[in-house]
């Protein structure tokens, strides 16, 4: 046997190793990086940052397809939005599969994998957990912002050691032009597990808009921002009206450009929040899949007819 025999034998390597090595991602395994972050966490970590807008394939495509659909997963891969950011400690490996942002609403798919017995036990519960962001340029003194938003966890993308979840993001509350570091903690109601599970797991993250967005206006001057992933308004009266509509009826339709045809808006979740304690009202809606918003120039939401602002 010689060196060439081993190299030749590597023709029989499992696909999973080849696919993994072929992924376009940049991995930094650096304790120094984390020390610079000065966020009070000490552990070896693999911190991943995006490789840029190049064609990449989802490592957990089944999850992305489950939370959106197959076409959306393919579309995101083609647009370079299959991020596959990875960060891990000895207990858990978290992959940020994708982050979508229109500047107002956003969506994220993550996959959590247990690496040791403690991590696998935790993953066995398929829990939700808390996520925080801190401004990257002000990491030592900056506020740790709780990343608010609902989400879902589908049991079709669960194994004994791994699960994926999707999180809706209220990006209207944060400055999306800034760079952030995202960290994790146990769900605040979780008194059972050890917070050390998330020590050292951190991501450089950006919420800069990466999908198309259009501003729509109706005859009474109401505004809504429609994007490929959802729509948003901060107008109290518009939110009140939206709140009276059914998400699953014919009440919400997008109007096709140069056509009398319209398409029903397929929504997975919506928040119409006019709570007095909030700084501003919040009307956020998330679509179930990517919508090619450039094909539309209007929307009918109940008795409100919106047209694209040129």
């Amino acid at each position, binding site marked *: 046997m*010689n060196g060439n025999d081993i190299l030749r034998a590597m023709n029989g390597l499992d696909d999973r190793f080849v696919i993994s090595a072929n992924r376009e991602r940049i991995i930094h395994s650096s304790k120094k990086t984390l020390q610079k972050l000065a966020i009070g966490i000490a552990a070896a970590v693999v911190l991943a940052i995006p490789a840029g807008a190049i064609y990449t394939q989802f490592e957990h495509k089944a999850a992305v397809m489950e939370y959106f659909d197959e076409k959306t997963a393919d579309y995101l891969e083609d647009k370079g939005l299959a991020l596959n950011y990875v960060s891990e400690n000895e207990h858990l490996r978290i992959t940020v599969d994708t982050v979508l942002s229109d500047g107002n609403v956003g969506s994220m798919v993550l996959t959590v994998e247990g690496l040791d017995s403690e991590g696998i036990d935790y993953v066995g519960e398929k829990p939700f957990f808390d996520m925080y962001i801190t401004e990257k340029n002000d990491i030592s003194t900056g506020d740790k912002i709780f990343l608010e938003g609902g989400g879902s966890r589908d049991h079709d993308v669960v194994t004994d050691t791994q699960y994926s979840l999707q999180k809706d993001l209220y990006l209207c509350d944060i400055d999306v032009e800034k760079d952030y570091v995202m960290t994790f903690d146990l769900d605040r109601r979780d008194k059972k597990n050890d917070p050390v599970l998330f020590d050292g797991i951190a991501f450089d993250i950006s919420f800069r808009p990466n999908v198309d967005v259009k501003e729509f206006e109706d005859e009474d001057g109401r505004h809504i921002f429609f994007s490929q992933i959802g729509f948003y308004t901060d107008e109290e009266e518009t939110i009140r009206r939206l709140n009276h509509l059914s998400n699953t009826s014919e009440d919400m339709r997008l109007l096709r450009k140069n056509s009398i045809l319209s398409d029903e808006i397929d929504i997975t979740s919506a928040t119409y929040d006019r709570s007095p304690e909030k700084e501003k009202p919040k009307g956020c809606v998330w679509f179930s899949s990517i919508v090619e918003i450039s094909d539309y120039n209007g929307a009918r939401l109940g008795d409100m007819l919106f047209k694209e602002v040129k």
Partner: protein
Amino acid sequence: MYEFENDRDLVELFLSRDAAAVIKTEKRYGKRLNGLAKSFLSDKRDAEECVNDTYLKAWDSIPPQKPDDLFSYLARLCRCTAYNIIEKQKTAKRSAQLVELTHEMEECIPDSSRSSSPDDKFISSLINEFLDTLPRYKCDIFVKRYWFGKSVEQIAIETGFTTSKVKTTLHRTREKLRIFLEKKGVQP
């Protein structure tokens, strides 16, 4: 709604025996496959022949094959084809890169004598088993180097590690592989 082509669309073209499959695959993956072929073959024409054979093999094998990851499938065909060309020619047409890789791989052989060649499939299965024991980033670095034939510098760029970190990781991984093969009773 979407005007784009992805791997699945390309595989569908192969499955429907549409000749555009090869043209579009060449357009999409030609450069990368050429780079892979050149990692193993020094002669430009050999590399071109290797890539063309790869397209032909893909055309002949899809269907019945229906790869989920088309590039990995093509890359495997390309790598095997490159080895076939090397074996067939039995001349000094291996690329300098391949000579270097071979030399590095010598370190993984449990004994310095090289009298026989254990079955490729057996060694393959052991290497797969070995890679399963590695942290993912080490596994990725190892595969980038010895499967894709990438240079240390290129791996450093792709991973964000320094070249010395990549070199050290490769060195330690080779040493681990040697011990692993020894424990598994691989005889030279």
